[in-house]
């Protein structure tokens, strides 16, 4: 059996067409997706907002406000991102003039009562461009918030100055006004590009069906002269089939791991820190693909029909794994919601779901479910293949 295993590996490796497709396909497709999507998350990130600040006497006297501007211009301790990118001018006239070059959202002045005022660049509001409005809104929110706090503290100091004798008063005053805390519903921050990479890996897994088909073509008595010759050897079908399919699977797995490592470390695509579990998914996915290929290879039909069936299956089932874009993803999700049985029997969807659940879910329930379904599929394909191949004598060759 070891000899059959080794020679099957050699024949598969030296069959350049199969190997190039198996190795190159995930690399090419993931590279394509990377070039398309690597900036997609960047577009949702807010760059520091460019504003002009009139640093006149009023501003210098408004210590609390200048402190606030300084704090917002400093990188955040969590994400290293500053909220504001202030540019200081000496007068409102200068600021207004600078605004004309279009590089700033607006300018801020501070009046004698230490109240800030914001003058927006009218060109950066309204219209169909929503993002400038959002940015202006953020600046306004900051200033509104500051004004409210300033007024509250000012009023408290005017009417109840004794309260400030208590060193903890300011903390308590501001404590009840904590902002909304951002929490993630998922185990990791969502990323719209991830589904594509997961779908590519799932798709690539099932491209490996060709190895299974190829292996069976050389085993089945009525599929090729090679099959007939091997059938006449002094080995049982099992002793020929097991190492042949094992070799096909091992090579599929190796090709897919190259793709996985390329995606993970070449493009830095996150798998939720569950790389070990991802290897298990790839291993099981490629096993199902190899056995499904073997089952197709064992069907009593022409080689062309088998290749066609494989291509149709892979392309069709990939629709529901979200490989072809947002429409495909929505369709897949809709089918999963309304016709869950169809998703359960879609091995490509199950592989993609397994990656997805590893990244997003904080428990492994969905992951194990996908693995269990893939395991059942592998068993069904193996039994089907055996049933097709158990016949050793044929009515015709």
């Amino acid at each position, binding site marked *: 059996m070891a*000899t059959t295993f080794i*020679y099957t590996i*050699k*024949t598969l490796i030296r069959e350049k067409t199969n190997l190039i497709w198996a190795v190159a396909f995930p690399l090419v497709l993931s590279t394509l997706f990377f070039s398309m999507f690597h900036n997609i998350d960047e577009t949702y990130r807010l760059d520091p907002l460019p504003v002009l600040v009139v640093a006149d006497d009023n501003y210098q006297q408004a210590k609390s406000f200048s402190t606030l501007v300084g704090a917002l211009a400093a990188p955040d301790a969590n994400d290293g991102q500053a909220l504001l990118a202030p540019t200081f001018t000496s007068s409102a006239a200068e600021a207004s003039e600078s605004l004309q070059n279009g590089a700033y959202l607006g300018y801020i002045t501070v009046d004698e009562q230490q109240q800030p005022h914001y003058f927006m660049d009218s060109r950066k509001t309204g219209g169909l461009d929503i993002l400038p409005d959002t940015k202006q809104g953020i600046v306004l929110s900051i200033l509104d918030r500051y004004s409210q706090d300033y007024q509250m503290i000012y009023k408290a100091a005017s009417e109840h100055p004794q309260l400030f004798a208590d060193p903890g008063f300011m903390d308590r005053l501001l404590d009840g006004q904590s902002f909304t805390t951002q929490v993630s519903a998922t185990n990791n921050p969502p990323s719209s590009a991830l589904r594509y990479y997961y779908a590519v890996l799932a798709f690539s897994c099932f491209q490996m069906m060709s190895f299974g088909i190829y292996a069976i073509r050389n085993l089945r008595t009525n599929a090729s002269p*090679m099959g007939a010759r091997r059938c006449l050897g*002094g080995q049982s079908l099992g002793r020929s089939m097991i190492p042949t399919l094992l070799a096909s699977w091992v090579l599929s797995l190796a090709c897919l791991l190259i793709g996985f490592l390329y995606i993970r470390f070449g493009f830095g695509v996150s798998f939720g820190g569950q790389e070990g579990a991802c290897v298990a998914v790839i291993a099981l996915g490629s096993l199902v693909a190899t056995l499904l290929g073997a089952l197709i290879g064992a069907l009593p039909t022409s080689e062309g029909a088998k290749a066609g069936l494989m291509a149709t299956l892979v392309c069709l089932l990939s629709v529901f794994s979200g490989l072809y874009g947002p429409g495909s993803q929505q369709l897949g999700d809709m089918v999963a919601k309304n016709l869950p049985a169809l998703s359960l029997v879609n091995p490509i969807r199950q592989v993609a779901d397994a990656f997805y659940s590893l990244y997003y879910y904080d428990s492994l329930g969905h992951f194990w479910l996908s693995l269990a379904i893939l395991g059942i599929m592998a068993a069904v394909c193996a039994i089907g293949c055996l049933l097709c191949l158990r016949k050793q004598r*044929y009515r015709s060759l």
Partner: protein
Amino acid sequence: MKIIEVEDLVKRYKELVALDHFSLSIESGEIFGLLGPNGSGKTTAINCLLQLLSFDNGNIKLFGEAMTPSRYDLKRRIGIVPQNIAVFSQLNVTENIDFFCSLYVPKKARRHELVEQAIEFVGLQDYRRFRPRKLSGGLIRRLNIACGIAHQPELIFLDEPTVAVDAQSRNSILEGIQRLNAQGSTIIYTSHYMEEVEQICTRVMIMDHGRALACGTTNELKGMVSVNERIEIELADGPGPAAASPHQQALELVRTLPHTATASLDHNILRISCSHGSHNLSEVLEALRGADIAYGRVYSEPPTLNDVFLEITGKGLRD
């Protein structure tokens, strides 16, 4: 010892009867030739023997035991050289032979010896690392043979192993088959080349329409048909048209001889087909001399297996 026993084998493809109560018995040590036109049932018979094809009726015994698809012990004693080349294009010569040998011989060390012997046997020593696509047609045929015989089987099926090879390769293959036989292997050989079969086979079966029509040694087969010796005589040219008369006289004369089956005259060439008889040529020449008819060159050709084959199976074209 009977190495193959087939009794009353019937194989039908729907209405078509591919094997019609076909029986065969082959002794150990024979080189047995299986002849027949295309579609006569040769390959079907072999595939039934090897249990690749199911059949409707009959008994098959190999090595004295009933053959079934799962008799791997019997299969291990058989070597197959299929008509269609069945080697891996991705493996080189040594790897191909080693792979097919491994289907019968699990031990690597033993296999290594056998592979080397097979390579030497078919004369592929200089091509060990060559893959099939780098080999000529004759070398691939030899590789195909090496893959089938490397495990040194007792019974070898060779299905038209010399198709599309040059004369040198064919000669090498035929010599190899005879050496295999000399080493103790029983050979079942199918071919369309009558001279090959005549050259190497100890017994021959001619089959057609799924039936065994004749079986025996080549001499026995030749004795079964009406055609025997063929004689061509170049009659001497006479002086002009008047000379036509002695030629015609010669034709009439040979037609009266007891072993003449047919006789014809083509210009001055007299062609005679003889039926059975051991002294046909001397009888003809004696008759011509007796009639004072002059002749030049004389050709005599004994009957060939091809004559036998055509007489038994007919001269009509087949698919």
